[in-house]
């Protein structure tokens, strides 16, 4: 089959690779209908996440049709149209029972790598390096999905592929941030980053009853999407003092909930220098937490900060004093998609959650290298490049 693979720092190729096979009883094989780029892939491509091997198949946000079912699969049938969560979770361990699916004890067969880095190993993820399990990704015609009863969800008929796709990762992640940060009716929520994840965090906050929602970014097309499709207010950090603006708009309090959806490649200046920085600074301690710092500083006393952006190592100048003295709750997580996907699909079916606008560039899988270039450079207003492996 054809698949998009990582062939070096900031290098993606499309090549012919062997087809996947069922390896465990609870696996299914999926014929991938749509698979998309995620901001997390940029950290991978840039070489920030350890343990990528040349030839690894990329991709973790996807949907498709079940074409083969392992003998231990109970609830999925050949022909089911499903959306798949990015993290691989067994459904049986204590973490899964707590609905902390991305922390599954049995989802990462290579726990030694991340235990070494972080003291404990989170679960495994499709197409996200050997540190996160070494699972082949979804940018391919077919993909093996372990624990299919837990990590795949049948898409209601009234939800189109274009909408359902993002329930996989972007919407689940955003929803998790808004939910686990404790967003309550009447709250003011600020979100850093207007990518797929930040936009969906803002939308989820609104659906959870937040009264005022602000999204911070500097890319005009993305801020426009927030206005049009999410219905939140926007702040352009390249021209506005974000903390002053938030103070002014919140009666001096600061937001109750601050959600960071930017990640380790955050910048405080122009986009152009990012790629140079990525190339130059492949060091573990160069995670750039500028949006996390700002979120902590902007947050109201006793408020909560949720880190959705991906970080891999230690960071500098973390404002611990502000966090401690202001009594903040700080939390982060990889996505517990299985916890949120069912309700997200319901909101999608009712038309309360639309995501089609995120798919700014839809193209054949053969064009994946170009798709990633555009996504990385945010060229032509690219928010997500969606690949169609079967045309």
């Amino acid at each position, binding site marked *: 089959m054809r698949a998009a693979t990582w062939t070096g720092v900031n290098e993606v*190729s499309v090549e012919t690779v062997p*087809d996947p096979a069922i390896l465990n009883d*609870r696996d299914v094989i999926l014929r991938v209908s749509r698979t998309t780029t995620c901001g997390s892939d940029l950290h991978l491509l840039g070489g920030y996440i350890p343990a990528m091997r040349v030839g690894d198949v990329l991709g973790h946000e996807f949907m498709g049709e079940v074409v083969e079912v392992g003998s231990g699969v109970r609830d999925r049938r050949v022909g089911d149209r499903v959306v798949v969560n990015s993290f691989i979770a067994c459904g*049986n361990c204590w973490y899964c029972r707590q609905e902390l699916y991305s922390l599954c004890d049995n989802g990462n067969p290579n726990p030694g790598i991340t235990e070494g880095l972080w003291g404990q190993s989170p679960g495994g993820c499709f197409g996200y390096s050997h540190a996160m399990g070494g699972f082949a990704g979804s940018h391919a015609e077919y993909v093996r999905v372990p624990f299919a009863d837990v990590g795949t969800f049948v898409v209601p008929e009234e939800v189109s592929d274009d909408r359902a796709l993002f329930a996989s990762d972007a919407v689940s992640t955003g929803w998790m941030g808004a939910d686990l940060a404790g967003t309550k009716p009447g709250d003011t929520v600020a979100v850093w980053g207007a990518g797929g994840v930040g936009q969906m965090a803002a939308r989820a906050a609104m659906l959870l009853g937040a009264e005022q929602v602000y999204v911070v970014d500097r890319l005009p097309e993305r801020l426009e999407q927030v206005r049009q499709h999410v219905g939140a207010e926007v702040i352009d950090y390249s021209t506005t003092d974000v903390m002053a603006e938030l103070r002014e708009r919140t009666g001096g309090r600061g937001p109750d909930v601050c959600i960071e959806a930017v990640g380790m490649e955050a910048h405080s200046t122009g986009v152009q220098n990012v790629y140079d920085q990525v190339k130059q600074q*492949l060091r573990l301690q160069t995670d750039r937490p500028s949006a996390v710092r700002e979120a902590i500083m902007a947050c109201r006393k006793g408020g909560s900060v949720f880190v959705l952006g991906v970080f891999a190592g230690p960071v500098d100048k973390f404002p611990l004093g502000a966090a401690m003295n202001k009594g903040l709750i700080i939390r982060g997580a990889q996505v517990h998609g299985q916890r949120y996907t069912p309700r997200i699909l319901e909101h999608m079916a009712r038309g309360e959650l639309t995501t089609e606008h995120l798919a700014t560039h839809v193209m054949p899988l053969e064009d994946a290298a170009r798709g990633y270039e555009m996504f990385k450079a945010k060229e032509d207003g690219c928010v997500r490049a969606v690949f169609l492996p079967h045309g």
Partner: protein
Amino acid sequence: MDLNQLIGRATGLAGGAGAALLKQLQHVRVPGAGQASATDDPERAAQRWRAVTVLRDPAEVSASLPAPLAALGDRVEVRVTPAPGDRGAELAARYRGTPTEQQVGDLRAALRESKALLEVGEVLRMEPQPHGRRAATPQGAALEGAAAAAPREGVL
């Protein structure tokens, strides 16, 4: 420390490069990160109980030890105790005497596999999987070694 440097250094080591890489990762000491306390001397480290918590009734776990752990036979002592807060059973094992690194690796893998068997009923298999062309490079070999060694490494 620079991750690439780390990988590069591990690659330079003859044999078992992957495991060496992982061991180094466990000891990345960046100012502000890592460990403030004393560290175990190697003998104490090797002799510690190694434990996984399994979401199963402790009585069931004791009744029949999973095959990977049973295979280590008399060389290890095994202990099953209830985990607090309805978290199931703590399944712990340690070698009688001072084991080699190889043996500690065997025990880590056995405990992890036992946990998967008890909770899931099978151990995730990873081979064969689709991947593209891979030229033989020292970095690639180190990573492959690291991935292959990972089930036997870590802080368990």
